[in-house]
């Protein structure tokens, strides 16, 4: 992804844009709802809901098989969503776009259809200590069953991946698969994934690579072709889209010789009692009735984000995260876990408040109408490496602004005076 261009810093008007998001209109105890949990799931603009309604209200039918018009149109629109997503991410062709239910399924697909079928004793899979469980447990589980080695890149004191350690871990050439998160959901760190991929290829030209883009695509302009990874995973509910849909974006040739994962209808071309002919990708990997309405919604989410401009989204968050991080660091008793420099981070900000357990902080902030997440954020290995059991996390998105800061700081102050001796 590229940093926002300095000339022509596109911007948007947050106050106007907030009106697009129905849940942001509601009040809690007479206060404006301050939503700082978009890293868990983003709000959904009306336009995305309208796109799904259009399907349900005028085109409700199954796809890929109908000879009647509403089904033909629905099928065309479902396939357009694939093309739209490919374009949104700079993927060379829609043939590499497989719709899944979320990014977790996308990663598991690769774990089952590639890693479990190819890695064994003597091989290694390299991931990192800062992964979300979705990009860690599938590899761990596969390693258990298939006897390959799981290696993890540690995190430095600056909350970045330790690239020297990575180089060492790659040195023996045994790493056949690299799985790395693009942006950490806990630290906000933007990882140098293109560099890591290149480094891995230098150690083993046949290495296959997967990037977990769940926290990157909502916030940064992403160009998967430039990253040159084999697989890239996304999840719609974090990028203004609906629940129930995600995608695996793959190099089409990579899918060509992969056996299917889920099997059933639509993913085969022929079934005899004694043999099956798999369909071509991406259909080979989409068994059963897909999330149709959700694909309409995801299409609209790509439109929504592109209309704002991902450069502008990044520019807005870049400024905002700087403000938030600085303010939190200036608050007595607050420790921020994550890079300080907004160039190196996205909008997920983890922090601790002295003497206040994250649970208590979350409850206190809820009393202020402020929604933050507390806990391990599905990143236990990282929590261990940070030496904490849980953190509080405020995470920003395009509808957040500086007016969301004061309620957060007020809540923290109140929690401190309430709980801390």
């Amino acid at each position, binding site marked *: 992804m590229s940093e926002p261009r300095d000339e022509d810093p596109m911007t948007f008007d947050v106050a106007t844009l907030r009106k697009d998001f129905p849940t942001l209109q509601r009040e809690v105890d007479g206060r404006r709802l301050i939503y700082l949990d978009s890293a868990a799931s983003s709000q959904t603009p009306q336009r995305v809901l309208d796109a799904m309604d259009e399907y349900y209200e005028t085109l409700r039918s199954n796809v890929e098989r109908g000879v009647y018009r509403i089904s033909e149109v629905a099928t065309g629109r479902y396939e357009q969503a694939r093309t739209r997503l490919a374009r949104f991410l700079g993927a060379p062709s829609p043939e590499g776009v497989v719709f899944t239910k979320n990014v977790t399924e996308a990663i598991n697909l690769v774990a089952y259809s590639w890693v479990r079928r190819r890695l064994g004793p003597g091989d290694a899979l390299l991931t990192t200590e800062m992964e979300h469980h979705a990009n860690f447990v599938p590899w761990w589980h596969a390693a258990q069953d298939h006897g390959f080695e799981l290696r993890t890149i540690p995190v430095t004191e600056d909350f970045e991946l330790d690239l020297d350690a990575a180089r060492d871990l790659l040195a023996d050439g045994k790493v056949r698969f690299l799985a790395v998160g693009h942006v950490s959901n806990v630290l906000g760190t933007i990882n140098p994934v293109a560099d890591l991929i290149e480094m891995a290829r230098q150690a083993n030209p046949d290495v296959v690579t997967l990037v977990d883009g769940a926290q990157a695509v909502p916030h940064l302009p992403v160009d998967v072709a430039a990253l040159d990874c084999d697989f890239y995973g996304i999840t719609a509910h974090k990028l203004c889209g609906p629940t129930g849909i995600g995608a695996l974006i793959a190099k089409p040739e990579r899918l060509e010789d992969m056996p299917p994962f889920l099997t059933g209808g639509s993913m085969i*071309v022929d079934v005899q009692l004694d043999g099956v002919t798999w369909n*071509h990708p991406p*259909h080979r990997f989409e068994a059963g009735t897909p999330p149709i309405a959700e694909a309409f919604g995801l299409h609209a989410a790509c439109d929504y984000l592109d209309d704002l401009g991902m450069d502008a989204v990044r520019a807005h968050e870049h400024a905002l995260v700087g403000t938030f991080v600085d303010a939190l660091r200036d608050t007595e008793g607050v420790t921020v876990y994550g890079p300080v420099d907004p160039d190196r981070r996205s909008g997920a900000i983890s922090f601790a408040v002295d003497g206040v357990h994250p649970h208590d902080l979350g409850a206190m902030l809820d009393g202020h109408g402020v929604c933050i997440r507390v806990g391990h954020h599905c990143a236990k290995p990282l929590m261990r490496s940070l030496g904490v059991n849980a953190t509080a996390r405020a995470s920003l998105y395009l509808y957040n602004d500086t007016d969301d800061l004061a309620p957060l700081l007020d809540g923290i102050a109140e929690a401190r005076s309430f709980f801390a001796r």
Partner: protein
Amino acid sequence: MSMEDLYQEIILDHYRKPHNRAPELEGEDVHVHHSNPLCGDEMDLRIRVADGNLDAVVFDGEGCSISQASASAMTLAVAERDLKDALDLAEDFRLMMHGDEPRRADDLLDGVAFQGVARFPVRVKCALLGWMALRDAIETYESGATAHSVTYDDDKDGS
């Protein structure tokens, strides 16, 4: 989109009285079998080549009116053409099915009647079945083989 765009009289004629429909071909050089199990279409196409030209083309199988009629019209359009020329015509037909104006409308003969099918996306692959089988047969011939079998999925037209 009306039924008349899809089922022109000329198409129905080919469907009702197909040309060059036969289960066998004497002296065949190549036999290809194409199927689209999703539609339940099956097509056997046989060619005989003489002096680099299509000396005979016959088809057989099961399928909807569009696929059967298109194969019938195809056999007439490619008769006696040299292999390269026939491939070029097949490409012209394919592009027509994707909405282009045909370059060689005259050479396609009754094949141009299928232009309206382009507006019925799910039927495009039916109209292409015979032409794609032909292309495969010629390529199989050129590769030196004598038989080939292809199964289609929903979206591919062999391109």
